[in-house]
């Protein structure tokens, strides 16, 4: 650990926390529509994993991807504008919360069907391997997704062809309201990798430094051409699954205990104690993050809506169906 990294971690996690709080607020004011899946509690995973990844690596994510997008470097303005459905959003307002994309930053989205991320990731990995390129693909997924057929199909192919893919399980122990003991015969997701002869490891997903170090090692394995790797991060989400879910199925004591090992304040305390940052620096970083989020909300609010309903359906529209007969 060094000061720069500590600064980065604290900024990323503070931005993430503030962004999600603002999203919830804007959602309740009706500025954001659709489904909104928030990330508080899981910040250490996105930050640890994506700060260890190279800018050239591809990232494939799910519908709970705001923070993945932010840490990947998509400006908060563009992410918030997308949530607002504005043309300045990173998907032009056509994607929304669940479909953030930024091809320039190699952020391949944004998939709302559980299990879709695996084939997309091995496809990008296949291409990289076929072209003998050195980049890797980082594929995020939840514990619930590990029961989808594509998980097994894709892990098989990834291992069979030694594709450069790092599968990152964000195991928050819940699939909406179904707790992992009720949805999985084997609750230690990383152990499933052994069925495909894939190397795997479990890490404390509430500890950003541990996630960063584990990812760094895992990606070194992948980049060196040793095939795929599965990293299971044990984490927790504080909110319900989406804005429609209060999360009432979880015992109060469980929630309190998890909040007790909060990744953001936990890292802050540690950074102060270790001398990576001082109090003034930490507060400064946090207010920068808050300001970025406030600016993003204003930017989104002031941005125009997209106006072409049929833009980008095809690359070369034939217009045979446009307009009235």
């Amino acid at each position, binding site marked *: 650990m060094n000061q720069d990294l500590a600064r980065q971690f604290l900024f990323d996690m503070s931005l993430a926390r503030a962004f999600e709080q603002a999203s919830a607020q804007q959602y309740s004011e009706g500025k954001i529509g659709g489904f909104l899946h928030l990330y508080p509690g899981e910040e250490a995973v996105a930050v640890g994993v994506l700060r260890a990844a190279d800018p050239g690596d591809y990232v494939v994510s799910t519908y709970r991807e705001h923070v993945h997008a932010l840490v990947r470097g998509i400006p908060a303005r563009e992410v918030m504008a997308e949530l607002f459905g504005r043309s300045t959003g990173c998907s032009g307002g056509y994607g929304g919360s669940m479909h953030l994309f930024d*091809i320039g930053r190699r952020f391949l989205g944004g998939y709302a069907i559980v299990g*879709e991320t695996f084939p997309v990731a091995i496809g990008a990995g296949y291409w*990289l391997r076929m072209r003998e390129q050195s980049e890797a693909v980082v594929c995020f997924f939840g514990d619930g997704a590990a029961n989808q*057929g594509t998980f097994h199909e894709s892990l*098989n192919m990834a291992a069979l062809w030694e594709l450069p893919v790092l599968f990152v399980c964000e195991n928050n122990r819940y699939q909406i309201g179904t707790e992992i003991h009720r949805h999985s015969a084997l609750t230690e997701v990383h152990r499933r990798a052994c069925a495909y002869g894939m190397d795997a490891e479990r890490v404390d997903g509430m500890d950003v430094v541990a996630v960063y170090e584990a990812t760094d090692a895992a990606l070194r394995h992948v980049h060196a051409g040793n095939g795929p790797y599965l990293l299971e991060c044990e984490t927790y989400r504080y909110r319900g699954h989406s804005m429609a879910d209060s999360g009432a199925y979880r015992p109060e004591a469980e929630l309190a205990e998890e909040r007790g090992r909060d990744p953001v304040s936990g890292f802050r305390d540690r950074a102060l104690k270790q001398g990576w940052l001082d109090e003034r620096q930490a507060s400064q970083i946090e207010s920068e993050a808050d300001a970025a989020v406030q600016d993003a909300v204003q930017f989104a609010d002031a941005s125009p809506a997209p106006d072409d309903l049929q833009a980008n359906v095809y690359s070369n529209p034939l217009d045979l169906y446009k307009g009235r007969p």
Partner: protein
Amino acid sequence: MSPRQHNDQAGRIAPAQAREELMVWEALNIALDREMDADDSVFLLGEDVGLYGGSYRVSQGLLAKYGEWRVRDTPISEGSFTGLGVGAALVGGRPIIEIMTVNFSLLALDALVNMAAKLRYMSGGQLRVPLVARMPGGVAHQLAAQHSQRLEQMLMNVPGLRVVAPGTPQDSYWHMRQAVRTDDPIVILEHELLYFHKGPFDPDAKPPPMHSAAIRRHGTQATVIAWHRMVEVALEAAERLAADGIEIEVIDLRSLRPIDLPTLQASVRRTGCALVVEEDVRFAGAGAEIAAALGERCFGDLNQPVRRLGAADAPTPYEAGLESASIPDLTAVVNAVRMMLGS
């Protein structure tokens, strides 16, 4: 092996230009070979496409020429290898996936419908998905209900996908080559009974646009719209009717999404009467879309409603007699035209 050649059964090579007539599978094989030779981002994957050469021989010889990274035998994992194609397409590849038969495409629909067809749109135009999905189908040789489907209507209903249905060697070749070069996901429906049909073939003739329909026979009294094997049936019916002095126009649709409505409209304007003949189930089928579109666009030119012949509202039976009774045949087309013309 050099390009501009195709493989005979033993994997040896015969130059394409040496033959005027070719089978559909051979035309597809040459098209794949030429595209793979021209662009090294084109690659093929599917079950048994490599060493085995493809269930209908379409990819024969390609593994030996291009190696296993570009001609990849996959596990039986339709959902994921189709999605693999999508992922590779997003980052620069031009994958061609073979789904062994259209029946198994149902396992791949998530990748085709929710991913391939949507990603350009949902990303605000950032992503492109140059994916070709080939799938043989149709009623063929008593394969029974799980292996005798058409499913065109399921794929036609999806904005963002294109669907073509080439029936001749020349069209198969053109469609394949154009599909590979297009930045959108395209489904190529192939017909299992047509792979071994011969037809004229000129690899260097200039192709018409992918979506354009072809008038296979000119006529004045009725327009019969068909695709794939039903074109043959319609052409036979036209011969039979011509013997009685009835001249029908036979249109091979060639593309099911988009549909070349201008060509259909122009024909209907001349004949005043249209019949759609489809091998897929008639209920809510492609014919329903065509009939409705023509009704909206050329009501004034039609002297009666557009009629449709299609498969029975039942899964395809195994027994041979019932199987052939389940889809339109020569007699059905002849009778339908006679009835429409009141003769």
